[in-house]
């Protein structure tokens, strides 16, 4: 029995790679200096989908909502074994909070025939872990969050083990289901050479347009459009077109998208500054350390 999986992925700035080089002198972070990467736990979600496909067969669709640049992680997914890639990109998605994002994604997922929806547990830029459960609610399906192991899949019933913080829990439910997958679940496979050969030319229409614009800076916009349409048709024929969807295509109600669909707003953003407060240098010798210990005892910090 084959299972169709939809994997939701996100391109994120590599917030874990914050070193002195990306810090400004005032202690804030230069975001543009951070590379954009495949959100780590989304790779675990994709790997789980691939394992399901390896064992039972089925079709894997990856979807990302983001800027045209997010096409990179869709290609990466195709290199690793996904069958279909969708770039959900629309300027009207901008400023969506997790609720609006889950609404938009639900409209996209509903267009696909699926048994299992997989997401990473959380994205490293926001660390909210909210979109998965919010999406499951919008799809009206059960969720299993913090999945660390797939135990069994048979007869349209799934058994999975989830992390519950101070231990684990095994749960069973009927499909369809949404899973959020943790990094403990698996070790994501690397890209396959054959797939790279096939999909390295894969592009979404907006990426093709951008490429053509760079190549023909003097060409008229209509000309670029026509060229891009032809190129995309060629890619489609080769089976390597990254599909591009917008809010009209997925029939999203605009009042639930972007800024108007987002109940949360940002009041203020402050950079964390690694500011020195009152501090003392202690000499790493017996005298320095002994003085420090005595001071801590006097201050009743050490009993």
């Amino acid at each position: 029995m084959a299972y169709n999986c939809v994997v939701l992925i996100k391109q994120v700035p590599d917030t874990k790679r914050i070193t002195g080089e990306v810090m400004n002198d005032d202690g804030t972070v230069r975001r543009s200096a951070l590379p954009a990467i495949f959100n780590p736990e989304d790779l675990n979600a994709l790997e789980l989908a691939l394992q399901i496909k390896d064992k039972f067969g089925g079709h894997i669709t990856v979807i990302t909502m983001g800027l045209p640049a997010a096409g990179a992680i869709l290609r990466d997914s195709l290199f690793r074994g996904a069958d279909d890639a969708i770039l959900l990109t629309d300027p009207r998605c901008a400023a969506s909070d997790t609720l609006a994002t889950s609404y938009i994604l639900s409209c996209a997922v509903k267009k696909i025939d699926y048994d299992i929806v997989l997401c990473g547990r959380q994205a490293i830029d926001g660390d909210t872990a909210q979109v998965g459960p919010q999406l499951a609610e919008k799809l009206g399906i059960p969720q299993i969050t913090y999945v660390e192991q797939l135990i069994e899949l048979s007869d349209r019933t799934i058994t999975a083990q989830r992390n519950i913080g101070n231990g684990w829990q095994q749960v069973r439910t009927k499909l369809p289901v949404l899973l959020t997958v943790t990094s403990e679940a698996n070790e994501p496979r690397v890209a396959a050479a054959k797939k790279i050969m096939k999909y390295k030319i894969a592009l979404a229409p907006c990426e093709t347009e951008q490429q053509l614009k760079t190549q023909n800076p003097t060409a008229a916009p209509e000309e670029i459009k026509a060229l891009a349409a032809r190129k995309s048709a060629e890619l489609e024929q080769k089976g390597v077109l990254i599909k591009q969807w917008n809010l009209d295509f997925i029939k999203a109600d605009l009042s639930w998208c972007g800024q108007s669909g987002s109940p949360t707003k940002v009041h203020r953003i402050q950079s964390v500054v690694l500011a020195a407060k009152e501090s003392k240098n202690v000499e790493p010798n017996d005298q320095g350390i002994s003085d420090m210990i005595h001071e801590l005892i006097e201050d009743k910090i050490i009993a």
Partner: protein
Amino acid sequence: MISVNRKGEVWVFAEQHNGQLEDTPIELLGKARRLADTLGVKLAATLLGDNVKELAIKLIHYGADKVYLVEHPLLQAYQTNSFAKVMSDLIGKYEPQIVLYGATITGRDLAPRIASATKAGLTADCTDLQIGDHTTVKDGKLYKSLLFQIRPAFGGNIIATIINLKRWPQMATVREGVMLPPEPDVTRRGEIITEKVKLNQQNLPLEILQEHKRPRKVDLKAARIIVAGGAGVGSKENFKLVWDLANCLGAAPAGSRAAVDLGFIDSDHQVGQTGTTVRPSLYIAVGISGAIQHQAGMSQSQKIIAINNDPDAPIFGIAHYKIIGDLNEVVPKMIKAIKSVSRGS
């Protein structure tokens, strides 16, 4: 979604498992009490389970004015759908202005589901909450007494303050261990409101087959002194230095994420954004460079000693005592100094 309801109460979701109250609702009640007093409204806890009435009294002792008690055999074990349904219905019925959840695994599983069902906003993993005013940039409109939901974002590199202008309730999950738990007052009296709910098997799509809980080996949150080692300690064998220093101070040994990933110490001992948030009287960072993710979990310590051979290590930015030197020499010297003091007294 409900609209702005200034008379609405402040709510805390009282997470319990098997009749045991978690720490987070107690931590939240302390903060929520102050929020409710600032707003001049009542503070309520929502308690869902089976045979959990006893806990309602406890919630009142910790500061709740009211407890909405929902008991049902099908609420015996936590499940996303059943709990989300009951909470969403209660929110629709009473229209609270604020609903807070602990950012535990259960809280992070449940709260977004409720937010999605009620079409309300939700801010994850807050480290502070305040009441404040907001003026919109666009039209200069003033919104008074909103919940400021303050959280680190972008890997802890920025602190964002999030608000909900028009679509309420204002909901947030709050990181474990960052709010000080209040002292219980056993003389406090409050109101217990018993809510009847209808649930059926459809509200319980999951079958819980088995559960394995392992007790935490260490309670970092309760420790007065913590000695934490990082990648700089070098090896599991050398991590004995951290344990030795902890032992002579009666402190809890801990580690950074790097130390845990390298297998120097068990993940129960991990301090930082992905580990435990701690606020001890004294935090001794041994060979920890102090990535912002680590600082997020310990920067509120009263005093911080940092030992590192790299003078540029970020940990020195927040340390009260900076010891630039080889930890293999410094730590034994500290142990010697502490032992000589305790012998002297």
